[in-house]
Structures are given as structure tokens and as C-alpha cells.
């Protein structure tokens, strides 16, 4: 039994460090904000132009002029700031944001990521994802280990159009925590509770390195 989406977010939240500015993508990454560890102060950046993004507003307090990059109504924390798109991406490309968490359709074992287009079926656009993955020093991908058809999303080569090359550092799925080593492939760091190495191996199409005892995640 693998992790729920919320548990994936919970595990990723353990990677947060005090003083970091963090950009969270749409979907599972957004949930990371609900699990900030005790004693850790971070600020969330949303690329449409806010630092210090807060939780959803109380009903009746929604403001059309205050949204996140997913176009959801949000609030601003004390100390928040607003800025233009150009300045927002100066923060991102200029590596002032310490961590980027985003979803993916596919990741390859050298760190390539595909998450913006399925030719002939889904073309929504890359939004800010290409800027984020091209510049961020620390990128964590949050996703399911397999797609709806049960096929591995951790591949030798991505089959979908790429968002960025050799950029993903870490992946947290419903089954495992993996580090991407461009030379070795997916290095298995942790297993979801009750999930075996064999199961992870069978659902990982790219190169997988599983050496020694692989601990279970602590949630």
C-alpha cells in the first residue's frame, strides 16, 4: 500500500530547511504547505507575483486580486510582498528561490522531466515550469510512481516532450524516495511503509540502484 497524495506532500515537507524560499507547483506540491515541520520558517513564492503566500481565505473573504499560480484564491501572510512577473522570474532564474517542488508525467534516470504536453491529446502549455527547472538548484518531483495505465513514470528516456534536461534531483512517489544520479540512475533512498524493493524495482523502468538495507519512510 503506497502513500496518499497528502503523505507524499508530508514526506517532501521533511526536506524543507529553515530560511528557504520555496516555489510549489500545482497539485500534490501545493499540499506541502500544510506540513511545514515545527521550528522551520519558510516563505512560499507563487510565480504570478507573491512571496509569503498564505492559506486559502475564509469563506466570504475571497479577493479576485489575490490568487496563486493555479488561479486559486489565497491570502497573504504578514510580511508578504507582491511584484510583477518579470521580477518573479528574476527571483527564479536568479536562483533566489531555494527549492522548487513540481509534478511530472515522466522523469528519466538522468534527471530529464516532461510535464507540459501530450502530443495530440493535451496541450496546456508549460507556464513557468521551464524557467523553474532550468534554473532551480534544488528540484523535487512529487508524483505517482506509475500512470493510470499502470506504466512506470520513471524511465530511461522520457517519451513525452521535455520540460527540462538533467535537472531533477529528487523524486518522492507513492512508493519511494529516490535521488537522481545522472551516472547511476534512480538511487533508492527510502521505501513507503510496507512497500518492498521488488515492487519498486518492478515499477521502475529506468535504471534503479538499491544497495543495502533501504529504510522505510518515517511519516
Amino acid at each position: 500500500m503506497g502513500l496518499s497524495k497528502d503523505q507524499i506532500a508530508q514526506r517532501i515537507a521533511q526536506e524543507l530547511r529553515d530560511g528557504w524560499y520555496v516555489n510549489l507547483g500545482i497539485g500534490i506540491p501545493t499540499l506541502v504547505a500544510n506540513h511545514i515541520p515545527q521550528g522551520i520558517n519558510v516563505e512560499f513564492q507563487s510565480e504570478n507575483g507573491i512571496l509569503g503566500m498564505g492559506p486559502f481565505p475564509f469563506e466570504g473573504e475571497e479577493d479576485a486580486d489575490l490568487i496563486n499560480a493555479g488561479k486559486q484564491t489565497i491570502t497573504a501572510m504578514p510580511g508578504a510582498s507582491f511584484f510583477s512577473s518579470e521580477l518573479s522570474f528574476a527571483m527564479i532564474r536568479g536562483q533566489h528561490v531555494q527549492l522548487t517542488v513540481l509534478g511530472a508525467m515522466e522523469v528519466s534516470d538522468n534527471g530529464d522531466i516532461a510535464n507540459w504536453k501530450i502530443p495530440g491529446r493535451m496541450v496546456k502549455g508549460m507556464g513557468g515550469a521551464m524557467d523553474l527547472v532550468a534554473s532551480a538548484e534544488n528540484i523535487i518531483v512529487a508524483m505517482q510512481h506509475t500512470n493510470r495505465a499502470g506504466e512506470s513514470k520513471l524511465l530511461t528516456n522520457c517519451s513525452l516532450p521535455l520540460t527540462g534536461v538533467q535537472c531533477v534531483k529528487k523524486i518522492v512517489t507513492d512508493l519511494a524516495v529516490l535521488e537522481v544520479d545522472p551516472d547511476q540512475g534512480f538511487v533508492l533512498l527510502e521505501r513507503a511503509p510496507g512497500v518492498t524493493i521488488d515492487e519498486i524495482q518492478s515499477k521502475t523502468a529506468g535504471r534503479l540502484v538499491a544497495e543495502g538495507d533501504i529504510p522505510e519512510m518515517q511519516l
Partner: protein
Amino acid sequence: MPTTNYISKVVPDATAALEGLEDNMTVMFGGFGLCGIPENSIAAIREKGTTGITCISNNAGIDDFGLGLLLHTRQIKKMIASYVGENDEFERQMLSGELEVELIPQGTLAERCRAAGAGVPAFYTPAGYGTEVAEGKEVRVFHDKPHILEYAFEAPFAFVKAWKGDKSGNLIFKGTARNFNPMMAMAGKITVAEVEELVEVGELDPNSIHIPGIFVQRIFQGVDYEKRIEQRTVRGKSE
């Protein structure tokens, strides 16, 4: 010293602000999703019936609001954007080939606007290297990392929306409705700003101006703002 010496940018309304807008022009529209979009100008362009528009805008609106209104009337020939979800009519026109679409990374979109307004003809960015966005583009390595060459946009018209503005075109934005509006104001040869509150010169604190009036050619008091919310998300009182 004269006390009323300023350059007035005021036009009576959205219709008057469109003077010189012809078919087949490239036009910028500020906004992110439906947040901070120039609602009045979009409605006036629909009314005027201008066609063959090449739109530069981060998004394409939704089916019945924002730029979606100009898609329905087939006034848009080409869309240059970073993200175009949430719009069935857009998807239909794109897949059928009626609408040309160029998708570019959001930061590159912003910087191509800024560069246009700042007199920088082109720049290198790492965004999109190794992807289909980089196809046919010059690549240069800086600090051991490949970057691709991107050019400044050229836009005869830019339509932006601000919270407050004065009669000389100084603008102040609110919340995340700022987004693409400032750099599109910089980029437009003719920038039209519509504002929720148009005030007299001198009423805005110079320390608080986000975009100086030099970047704005026309300004008008907007009316009947809907300011629709795309994704209404709330939390319970107990959280």
C-alpha cells in the same frame, strides 16, 4: 512654477482608447488568468470587431470571459502565451488549426516584454534549453550552462489594467493583479491603461507608483468591473 504642469493621457472611454487599432496587429494584454485583465478594453475590441489579432498574453481567458470573448468571435489569429488550459473553445480552434498558437515559458514571456520596453533587443535564458522551445534558436554557454537566445517582442498596442492611476498615466496595481501589466505597459508603443480609480495628478504618492506615466499613452476610468474568480478556494472557520 506652474502647479498643474503635467502631460494628460486621459481619454474618455475604452472606445476612444482604441484609436489606431487596425486589423492584423500584434497586441499585448496584461493579466494572469482572469486576474488583472483589461476587461473594458477587451469588451471594446470585441465591439469594434478588429480581426487578425496576434495576442501576446500569459493566458487565453476562459470560454465566456477575458480573451475567450475574442476567441469566440474569431478576432484572434494567433495566440502567444505560456498556459492555455481552462478554455474549451481555445482548444477546439487550436486542434482544428483555425488558431495559431505559440507556447513559450512564462519567464521568457515576461522578459521579452521587459526587454522590448527597456531597449534590449535580445537576451539569453536557460529556460527551454534541450526542449522543443529551443529548436532553431542560437545556443551559447555561460558559466558552463547552455542558454538560448530570445528576442524582445514588438507590440504596437498594449492593454493593461491597474487599480489606481492618475491623469498623467502613473499606475498602482493591487495584489497579484500586477503580474504582466507593468512590463507590457513598458513594451507597448501605444499603451492603454484602464483603471478602477482615476485620480487627479498629485493625489498618488510618488513613492508608491509602480509604473511611471512615461510608459502610458492613454488612460481611462474603467466601468462595471466583474473581476471574476477562476478557482474559488476557501477554508473552514475552524482551520
